[in-house]
């Protein structure tokens, strides 16, 4: 019985990252990466096309900031709320 629970614990330890399966982690990372790339391109286009781009750019920069903080740095896990 103890052997089974130890094996289960080892299996979880070697297949999960921050409480999620590795495959799911990789999928999340790829999605965030794509989102960051798209937002960066949008930022660039706005900066080139718009005369006073400060206000239009702010939400995009803020969104990129939040995505990195949350999904790459696992900020809410530090606060003890959920685990990304």
């Amino acid at each position: 019985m103890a052997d089974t629970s130890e094996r289960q614990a080892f299996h979880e330890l070697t297949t999960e990252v921050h409480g999620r399966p590795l495959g799911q982690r990789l999928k999340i990372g790829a999605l965030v990466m794509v989102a960051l790339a798209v937002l960066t391109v949008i930022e660039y286009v706005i900066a080139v096309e718009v005369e006073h781009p400060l206000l239009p750019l702010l939400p995009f920069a803020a969104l990129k900031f939040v995505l990195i903080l949350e999904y790459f740095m696992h900020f809410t896990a530090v606060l003890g709320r959920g685990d990304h």
Partner: protein
Amino acid sequence: MATVTVEAAHSRAELLHQPRSNKLGLWIFMASETFLFSALISARFITSGVQKPEDLNQALAFGLTCVLLVSSISAYLAEAFIATGHRRAFLASTRITIVFGLIFIGGVMFEWREALENFPPGTIYGTAFFSLIGLHAFHVLTGVLALAVVLNLGAIGHFGPANSWPVEGAVKYWHFVDLMWVIIYPTLYLF
């Protein structure tokens, strides 16, 4: 005998609390660094408003941003791989991250050469530009060094699913460097 038990309990308590203390310490450190970056970012707006020189190398800055974003995903993978015991994948991802970090530093050096001619540090915008980019490039360099340390230790068998905190710490710092660039890039090039 009793002393030994108390000592054992103390060391067990230390082992249990050490990772939490390490994490808290890293977050406090990153928070203090954020204040430093914030001071320079606000100085840029106070001294030169939203004015920026015409001869900024936008294409290079966009390329550097992409390099840093790609390095962030490879760092993310390195953390995920070591936490699940995939050592070879961890080593490869960390190497890729370091290479992208070095490419970023190379790009910054190239950019500085151009910037020194167009808006030298003596100008208002030049002061903000060189201070912010310099501070950030120094952080990228220290991030590369931290990753090189965990890469070398990982290559000789350190770290694994039960002990991945040092890698996590170095990777978090790398993401922090990326996070600061997300604000610095529009601050200096886009606004």
